[in-house]
Structure formats: C-alpha cells, structure tokens
C-alpha cells in the first residue's frame, strides 16, 4: 500500500484541516496523532510525503525522525516539518538530510497544496 500524504500532529483540528485540504486536492491522506502511530503506518508500508509536527507529547518530531532513520523506514519518504516554532533548535542537528522543508503554522491551504504537489512530484521520480 503506498499512500501519498501523512499528517503527524497531536491536534485533531489541524489533522482535520489537512484532511480537508488533501480531500479538495484529491490526495490520499493518512492520519497519525503521534510519533508512534506514524511509525506504525511506516512499518505497514506507507511511503510518501510526511507532514511532521515538532511539538508532540511522547516522541516529539525530531525523535520520531530519528526512529524512522534508525529503523530504515526513510527511503521512499520525504519529510516536511509543520510547526508553530520559529527557527529549529539544536535538536535538529544530524537530521538536516532528512528534513526537506519547514512550514510554519498557521499556513494557508494553497501554500500547503503547492508544497504537497511539488514534493509528491519529486517522489514520483523513477529510480535511475
């Protein structure tokens, strides 16, 4: 199963908003309310663009990415941070290669859809 977009955020309204946006664009969306759920989806075979919140209870965004890399679940995925924080702090050190973009909240639907379309197109590039 290869879905295309995953939203990882502990706030249900934000997840809902992203869902609506994806719906209106005809994008498949998988919802995860925590880092743990995200990992589960990845273990189940999700590959696509991951919208990752930074501040979550339990594993935060950075820890989740580290775990994704550790479990070798990154290949085939592309990660965009979704965060209310300004500049990231040193917890991002070592994860630069895995974070392709950084979107600050609040964001408009167009900004999100543009990004999603662009990055999904990147992912669809065939293996040389």
């Amino acid at each position, binding site marked *: 199963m290869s879905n295309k977009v995953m939203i990882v955020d502990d706030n249900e309204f934000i997840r809902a908003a992203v869902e609506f946006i994806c719906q209106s664009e005809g994008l498949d969306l998988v919802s995860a309310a925590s880092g743990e759920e995200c990992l589960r989806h990845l273990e189940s075979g999700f590959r696509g663009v991951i919208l990752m919140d930074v501040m979550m209870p339990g594993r935060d965004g950075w820890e989740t990415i580290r775990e994704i890399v550790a479990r070798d679940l*990154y*290949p*085939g995925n*592309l990660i965009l*941070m979704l965060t209310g924080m300004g*500049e*990231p702090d040193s917890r*991002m*050190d*070592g994860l*630069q*290669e*895995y*974070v*392709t*973009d*950084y979107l600050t909240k609040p964001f408009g639907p167009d900004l999100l859809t543009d*990004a999603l379309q*662009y*990055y999904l*197109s*990147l*992912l669809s*590039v065939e*293996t*040389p």
Partner: protein
Amino acid sequence: MSSKNVVMIGVSTGGPSTLKELFNEIPPLNAAFVIVLHITPEMDYRIAQGLDASASMPVALARDGEFLKAGNVYLAPGGFHLKLDGNHRVSLCEGARVNYVQPSVDVAMLSLTRPIVGAVIGVILTGMGKDGAEGLRHVKRIGGTTLAQDQKSSVIYGMPKAALETGAVDFVLPPRGIAAKLIELLG
C-alpha cells in the same frame, strides 16, 4: 566550454524549493555550479531530476573524477563528501559527518583553492546549523565573492546567519537578488 568560474552553493532544509526558485531566474551562465545539499542517497537523484526539469542548465549528480563544465549544474550525491581538485575535478570521498551533516558544505568549500584564472563564488542558502560558515570564510580568503540568503526569504535562517556572523559575507540577498548578482558577476 571550459571555464574556470566556479559557483559553489551550500543549502539544506528548504533547499529543493529555494533552488528551484533560484535557478528559475538564472539563464545559462559561464560557470560551473556545484550544489552541496544535505541529502540522502535515496533522494539526491530525485532532486537533481526535479531541478533539471525546471532549470535552464542541465542538472545532474556529480560523479567521482568528473571534470566540471561551465553552464552545468552538479549536485553532490548523498552519502559522500565532495571535494574539488584544482577547482575543476570532482572527488567524492567517504568519511564521518562534518557539522553533523553529509555531504558537508564546509568540506566542499574548503577544498577550493585560490584561482589563478577565473572567479570563485560561494553562496549559502537556507538551512539549519552552521555548515558552510567556515567554507564561506575560506572562499573570501582565497579571493572569492560571497553571498548569503537574507532572513526574510530563508525557510530556516541558521546557515546564512552563521555565515554572516563570520563577517565574510559580501552580499545578503533573497533568491532573486542572488540570481541577479550572479548574472552580474558572471556576465
């Protein structure tokens, strides 16, 4: 077309979109462009292809031993550090992360040497951390021109800020401004 002009661009998170925007503004120029983007081996070719589709110059992954050609854009592949011999030959090497990253902009820029002929230009774009700051300082030292992206347009301002704090930055500009400046310098 062989030329001695080299433009080395260091960039991280926010890179793909910023590079797209930048190269949309750059016509084919008389220089070899080397992009050091913090990237994984799984993604590097995708970025290269994506950029190749929209840029005015061909974009491809740099290959070990390759000789740089003007009017081409080379992307450092993931999983290696990139160095240039004599500012014109690619050398890929394995090694530990530098500044927590691989490929490292510092490693690439520090491999540049003072040109007898031709120009060296260093650019630091959006990204987190301080990779490239030392590299840019080095570029300035060997007589090159240095540019850093401005805060407003940077997705993440970390790397440009670190570069700026070295005091070795000649120009602080948004992507369009950088494009204009490059055209100006290489035209």
